[in-house]
């Protein structure tokens, strides 16, 4: 890694930190403006409500609450949950779910990318044949049918009709109970990746350097695996970024259907019951992940394609 790349990365990190601060501030203010409260029992009297607010420090001026929150956050204390699990530390609540969502998301991305790239290559190499048509049909199905439909279908087939896999997610047996949701989640990835790989591969195969290499007598296998694939991966990586973040942050619907204790379902629940600290922590985590993944992808461009010079490109 050269100096300009390192400088570029440092600069990006600095910008990210400022962005994160702004995100936390805006989120905090929005949450305070949101109608409702985590203590929404109809039978609570106003006096009791005021006492609860005072006990949790929610009666202080909003700005003061914000600075208390940020200073605690810098010490690694994200507060406690009010409504999802009363008095549990948010870190303790969110922590175990990160692993669950990450494993699922990364698993689905890996499965989806591999199958997607293979499908795309097969389609491109056999353009306008039956294989191309099959691959295209598969991609269209993958894009147009929502993942939860696949999920339910797989649950019925593999969980009930031929019960080889469990229907419910089980945290003490996460491998077998993750397969169905993982496959369901990967369908969208397969479709997207296959489409991009196919069109990019066709373009690369028609380019002059490939024709030159062909003219030089390089074997077709070598040509495809060493020259073509590498170049057609760049746009694939561009689409992968948001897909990875999307999957890692958890697919709310799939999590709900399979009963997976991931981040997506936690966020939805937290918003429903106005559990402020949980909403803040999960949203903060999402922002961090998005920023980090985007940074990694920008750096990866340079690694895959030396023509892209990060530092210089950024300065121009």
């Amino acid at each position, binding site marked *: 890694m050269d100096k300009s790349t390192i400088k570029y990365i440092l600069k990006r990190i600095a910008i990210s930190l400022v962005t994160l601060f702004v995100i936390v501030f805006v989120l905090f203010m929005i949450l305070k403006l949101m*109608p409702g409260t985590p203590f929404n029992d109809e039978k609570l009297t106003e006096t009791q409500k005021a006492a609860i607010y005072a*006990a949790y420090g929610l009666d202080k001026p909003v700005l003061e609450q914000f600075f208390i929150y940020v200073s605690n956050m810098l010490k690694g204390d994200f507060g406690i949950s009010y409504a999802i699990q009363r008095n549990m530390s948010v870190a303790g609540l969110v922590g175990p779910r990160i692993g669950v969502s990450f494993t699922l998301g990364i698993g689905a991305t890996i499965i989806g990318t591999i199958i997607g790239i293979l499908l795309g290559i097969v389609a491109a190499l056999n353009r306008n044949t039956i294989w191309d048509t099959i691959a295209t049909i598969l991609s269209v199905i993958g894009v147009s049918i929502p993942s939860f439909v696949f999920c339910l279908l797989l649950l019925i087939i593999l969980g009930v009709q031929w019960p080889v896999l469990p229907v419910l*997610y*089980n945290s003490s047996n996460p491998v077998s109970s993750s397969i169905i949701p993982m496959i369901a989640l990967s369908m969208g990835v397969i479709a997207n990746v296959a489409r991009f790989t196919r069109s990019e591969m066709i373009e690369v195969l028609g380019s002059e350097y490939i024709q030159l290499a062909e003219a030089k007598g390089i074997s077709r296998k070598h040509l495809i695996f060493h020259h073509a694939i590498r170049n057609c991966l760049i746009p694939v990586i561009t689409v992968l970024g948001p897909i990875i973040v999307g999957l890692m942050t958890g697919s709310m619907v799939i999590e709900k259907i399979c009963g997976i*204790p991931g981040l997506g*379902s936690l966020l939805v629940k937290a918003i429903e019951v106005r559990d402020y600290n949980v909403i803040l922590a999960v949203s903060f985590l999402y922002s961090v992940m998005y920023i980090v993944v985007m940074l990694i992808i920008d750096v990866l461009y340079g690694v895959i394609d030396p023509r892209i010079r990060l530092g210089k490109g950024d300065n121009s």
Partner: protein
Amino acid sequence: MKKFLSLACCSVMAFSLAGCSGSGGDSSQTGNFVNLAKENDVISMDSRYATDGMSFEMLAATIEGLETMDADGNIVPALAESYDISEDELTYTFHLRDAVWSNDTPVTAQDFEYAWNATIKNPKAEYAYLFGSDGACIKNADEILAGDDSLNLAVKAVDEKTFEVQLSKKCPYFLSLMTFPVFYPVNEQFATEQGDQYALTPDNLIANGPYKLVSWSKGNKLVLEKNESYWDADNVKVDGINVNIVPEASTSALDFESGNTDFTKLNSTLVDKYKDNDAYTTVLEGYLWYLQYNYDNEYLKNENLRKAISTVIDREDLVENVLKDGSVVCGGFVPEALSTGPDGKDYRESAPEYFNVFAEDGLKAAQEYWDKAKEELGVDSISLSLLYEPSDPSKPAAEFIQSEIQKLDGITVEMVSQEKENRIEKQKAGDFDMVLTRWGPDYADPTTYLNLMLTGNAYNYGNYSNEEYDAKMSEAANASSDEERWQKLQEAEAILMEDVPVVGVFQVGGASLINKNVTGIENHAVGVPYIYKNLNKTN
């Protein structure tokens, strides 16, 4: 690339192979376990903080209070082997049996004294109000709730096994409240040692009830195992319970079909699919959805208009063809299966059914009331708003009510949809004409509903006031016998149903699937929704 591909293939295969090794449940678990699917996770295993049904169920499975409920809803002894009531009915003395916590320390009267004072003095404890005159009427509770820190609750551990409670006034349903988790004991020494971590994980918890919590994977699963040190362990038939948290009812129904889940609730969209299944069953829940009229509205002041609206809603059609989830028509302002009278009968069984004319007859009767109302009010057409919350079952019910009321020529119903919290805010502010609202019982007595309509009650959002009704309720409170009290309560309800400030629309039902081999899933309309002590599973 080749390496990458082969690595990927291997990992996919490893996943698939691992998948074949087991389906559902814990392969390491041996013994007779019942598998329940529940929609929500536990919010708090600390009896001082718990306010939701799921937390109540898990607390009741692991901790016992002074009293509990049997399958039929009768109050039966739990940790209190017996009790004495003073002649003026203001002092209850409980005699505790020999029981131990799962850390081998004895359950004592001090555990109750500590827990109760710790709850009422904790501003974060939402159900502390149940100690006051809206609940158990324990002496000094109202003063402490109002902020007087110098007082203690008038409860006393006379000795290790004797617990005395003094009331500020007679409380006929006091024993039924003793089954409520907020009145459970807490072991002071253990709770103090755990500090703010108390009850957050299985390690920070101790049990004195039929089961103990051995694992709790948040948002996914709880595992309960039989508590061998429980005083009545001989009568606990199963080795434990697996509680899977499954937010989506269709998934738990699929798991039920696969044979792994023994009990799951269904939502109304699944009822049609499973209603002919052998395992299908319905239970009644305590919640009553009712329509409340605002007396500050110039039209709704008119009794005939209120009667017209109350009569025109074909509630039978609503529960049978719209809700279809086991909900039932409520014939008054006190739901079924809530309370048993001195005659041994359910309150609703001995009280009359009100507004029980349906279909054509209902429409005809309603039309007559509406004609009278039009004449008295001097109008031909009016417009009223209906406040409701856009969730199940409120939304379909509200839409049904709108279409029913609009069958009366000249009434237009304008729908006002607000999330639950905002609905309550609007009710409190009196900003509604009619509202479809609900109430869950605090204790097994008709007054948990009837008190709501007293003049000036905080939940009497429609500003109803009738001296005759207030007087009747106070006569009931001071009645010399249980029979007289019951009679007065039914008379009070009759006054209410003549004035119709509210009309009960439906009582919530729960449709569920229960494995034929599993017995002892005991459902209650008040307090702890399900008690699992008597679970049994035959193979």
